[in-house]
């Protein structure tokens, strides 16, 4: 029971921290910016900032505890600062959320059950995966040795150089920082706390995408009546879905079907399998959360319905994802290209081109560094030569 309380509390703390970070990004002025977007953007922003705290001490073989001492006060300061700055907005968001719950109690209960089922499945099942031998063991090893990526997680042996595939993916080091700070064992933190957190965040994105597609806020002020299809109007309601009540029903059905697909689109390669059985791995976060967040931002930018720093948020998501798993280095530039390039061309929004390119750059740079490492151009040693 204590373990469940610790896990629940940790997940709540995670979400509060992400909200605090994200609110700094999404700003105070845009009242239409959903709370959930602040939380999700905050998740990537958190790992983006952590990267800059983590890499220099790691490169110069400083202890994990030194990073913990730097990072924890910083996070505390950000949370306090953001609370002072955004507290009122959060209260108003929560009031609106409560109003929604009162207005749609069945929808709320159904969504809670849906997410609850996923949480139970990912946090209470036993799955044997080879990659956990690296990721989880790396967290445990870093805590045990008070060093970062210096000892081989598979065997515990000292490594004379850093493995560049994982060097910039500092996600697991953040796990180590928290485990060191709180004393929570690596297995509980990664396979329960982070798994539940990722399931919650992924479902938030699903919900935002479903609402955006079905009950969307299509540039309400900008769409002129009759300009769009006959099924759409100035209020942004897709009338092909019928009344707004039907819209809510459609959102529920859509998110439920997303869950069904995640349960049934299963081979050892699909992102659904990663989400359901290897939730704590960086690949699962990139393949589900990051890709879907970029897709959501694309829908909003396509509709011109996001006012606050859409490209900055996209940049942070892309950079943040690259610090979570090196898989993002290739995936997100390709996703950005297939989504945003056609949109830029169609809208003739050439000013967006440099912004698109700047979002692609982090992944490409990390990829290039890795190629140079593989080809033997450089190596980062774990001890001064």
């Amino acid at each position, binding site marked *: 029971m204590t*373990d469940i309380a610790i896990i629940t509390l940790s997940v709540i703390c995670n979400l509060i921290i992400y909200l605090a970070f994200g609110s700094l990004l999404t700003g105070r002025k845009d009242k239409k910016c959903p709370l959930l977007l602040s939380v999700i953007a905050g998740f990537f922003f958190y790992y983006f900032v952590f990267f800059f705290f983590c890499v220099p001490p790691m490169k*110069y073989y400083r202890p994990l505890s030194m990073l913990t001492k730097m990072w924890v006060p910083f996070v505390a300061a950000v949370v306090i600062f953001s609370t002072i700055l955004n507290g009122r907005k959060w209260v108003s968001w929560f009031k609106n959320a409560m109003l929604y719950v009162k207005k749609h109690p069945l929808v709320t209960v159904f969504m809670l059950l849906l997410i609850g089922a996923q949480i139970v*499945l990912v946090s209470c*099942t*036993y799955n*044997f995966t080879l990659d*956990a*031998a690296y990721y989880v*063991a790396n967290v*445990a090893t870093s805590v*045990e040795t008070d*060093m970062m990526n210096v*000892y081989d997680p*598979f*065997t*515990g*042996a000292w490594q004379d150089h850093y493995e560049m595939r994982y060097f910039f993916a500092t996600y697991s080091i953040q796990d180590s920082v928290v485990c060191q700070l709180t004393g929570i*064992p690596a*297995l509980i933190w990664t*396979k*329960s706390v982070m798994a539940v957190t990722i399931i919650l965040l992924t479902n938030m994105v699903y919900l935002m995408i*479903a609402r955006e*597609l*079905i009950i969307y806020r299509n540039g309400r002020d900008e769409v002129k009546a009759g300009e*769009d299809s006959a*099924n759409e109007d100035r209020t942004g309601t897709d009338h*092909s*879905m*019928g009344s707004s009540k039907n819209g809510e029903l*459609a959102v529920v*059905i*859509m998110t*439920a*079907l*997303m869950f069904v*697909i995640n349960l*049934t*689109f*299963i081979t050892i*390669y699909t*992102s*659904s*399998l990663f989400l*359901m059985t290897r939730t704590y791995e960086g690949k699962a976060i990139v393949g589900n959360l990051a890709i*879907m967040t970029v897709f959501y931002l694309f829908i909003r930018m396509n*509709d011109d319905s996001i006012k606050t720093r859409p490209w900055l948020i996209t940049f942070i998501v892309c950079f943040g994802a690259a610090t979570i798993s090196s*898989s993002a280095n*290739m*995936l997100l530039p*390709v*996703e950005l*290209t*297939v*989504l945003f390039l*056609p949109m830029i061309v*169609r809208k003739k929004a050439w000013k967006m081109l440099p912004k698109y390119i700047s979002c692609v750059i982090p992944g490409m740079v990390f990829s290039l560094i890795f*190629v140079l490492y*593989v080809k033997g151009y450089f190596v980062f040693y774990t*001890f*001064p030569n």
Partner: protein
Amino acid sequence: MQGLNVTENGIRYLWECFSYYTGSCAYFMLYAAAVIYISIAGTKREKEIFIPCSVFLLLTVYNPVAPMVLDHFFDVNSEYYRFFWIAPVIVLVPYLFSKLIVTRTDMKQMIVVSLLIAAICLVSGKYVYADGIKWAQNIYKMPPELIEVSEKIHEDSGVEYPKAFLEYEYNMQMRQYDPKMLLTIDREDYLYAVSNPSYSREMLEDDTHPQYVLLAALVRFQDIDKESFLNALETTKTGYVVVSRDNPRIDYLKEAGLSIAGETQNHLIFKYDLKEPYEFELVDYSVVY
């Protein structure tokens, strides 16, 4: 993607890779059908959102030449499938299905369409827990016996970091639970051992990889003389060998002189007394800063 190689397969690689990726699931077919539907009957906004990206994906990720080009710069053999994650299957298919359901005019139609869609989903995929759900037996999500093995080795060993040879599954799991346990075999060596029939003579005589002898004896069950086996334990500083009770090499271990230091319901913990006691120490970085 294991066993698939761009150089060997050429432009067939993409199709082979895609076949592995989708397996028996038909969701990509549903996605393709949904894209066609949207391109014919979708609203302007739906077309803007779903059609250009699908066409671009077809031209890039699903272009058979793409993996061949990429392979010149990066090794994409085992990771190209991840590009398939970009296709918004999980958005478009549920979106159209939900639209099909809620746009029915009466309840009867709604129920019939919902049932039809449920049936399509059931037929189109493979359930993640098709082989049954394995509930975790503890908060660590580790086999309880692994925890027992760890405790028994630490109880028996006088050192902070004992070193052990474990069977495959425990080898992959032990350090997630117990980072104080050093392991003799790393992941790549174990993967080689379980996926290749035997070790060649050259490999067994390779002094730089004494762990091959241990793997040959205990995983591939090759005929290894006991002296070489004990030498390999000594060279690798392995103090413990943990095997399951049904391992056919139990008598071999006993005959080699290893003693039983502990046992659990399904495992035996053998101890080897190193001639030169070994105590692993963390590198002292205080001299650096």
